[in-house]
């Protein structure tokens, strides 16, 4: 090859790149403008059986539902998180405490008996929805700090039918 280059005195063949560069820049601008950065979203599956469904005596669950009550202030913020009849307070600490209480109930995460357990969330009508999501998250499991994986607690989440604000007073 080197020898050939030395010998040849013909004209250098030049490719016209401008057309390709035009198209490539067009594509680049198109992809840059259509790019939409979306934050990742996750889903919580919930079990909300329709009211008035016939329940046979054979379908009695082996464990009673774990009751979690969320009470709201008139402005919709959380005024109290109750695990059974115990008040766990408000704020992120309350949800952490709920997570600990759920762990105490199930004993060991991943135990097959947790499939038969269910949490019933009873939230006030005017409560901000974010509190419900946090409660569902606290009951569903926790994120393992070392591995970053999710340790599942109870996956069956039920909701108590809403009480209309007029009926609740």
């Amino acid at each position, binding site marked *: 090859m080197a020898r050939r280059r030395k010998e040849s005195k013909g004209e250098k063949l030049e490719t016209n790149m401008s057309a390709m560069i035009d198209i490539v820049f067009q594509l680049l601008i198109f*992809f840059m403008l259509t790019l939409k950065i979306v934050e990742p979203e996750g889903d919580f599956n919930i079990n909300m059986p329709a009211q008035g469904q016939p329940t046979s005596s054979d379908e009695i669950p082996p464990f009673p539902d774990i009751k979690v009550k969320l009470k709201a202030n008139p402005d919709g913020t959380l005024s109290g998180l109750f695990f059974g009849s115990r008040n766990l307070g408000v704020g992120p600490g309350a949800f952490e405490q709920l997570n600990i209480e759920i762990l105490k109930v199930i004993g060991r995460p991943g135990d097959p008996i947790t499939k038969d357990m269910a949490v019933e969330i009873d939230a006030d009508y*005017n*409560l901000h*929805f974010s509190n*419900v999501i946090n409660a569902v998250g606290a009951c569903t499991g926790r994120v393992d700090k070392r591995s970053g994986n999710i340790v599942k607690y109870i996956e069956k989440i039920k909701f108590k039918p809403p009480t209309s604000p007029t009926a609740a007073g």
Partner: protein
Amino acid sequence: MAKRPPNDAPEAEVDMTPMIDIVFQLIAFFMVITNFEQTQADERVKLPRDALAKPPEVKVEHSLVLNVGFYRDMQGEKTDAQPWLFNFVDGEPVLPLSAGAQLKKEAVLFKNKEIQLEDVTVKVRADSEVQTGIVQELIKLCQDAGFETFAMSAMSGPEE
């Protein structure tokens, strides 16, 4: 084009190769990260955030997305206390509790496509400040229309 005078100076050549390399890299990058999937998510909905809300590993095949949110200004403050169901009927917002008839129509549409309603997941994308009772009543309307499976959306990541 004016005629150039004869010039003996060597012609300056720009080596385009590195630029083309970089530009192709950029195109490849943008092509890979661009998501052309038509999502039914509405940007007005400010989803709650929870550490456990991880994106699903298996994509749901049939879903009906319900965006419940508020009209917000540029600062993200609510301009109307009334929550609306966005992107539902012809792009027009409707009141969540008056969506029953449309939900029944959606159920019929799924049935017409020979999709069982039990295979359809109703994805509730509710704003963090929406009243829980409204979300529950909306789910009740879905149940009345025949939908059975529900999922509630949240942003992934630690709570703010």
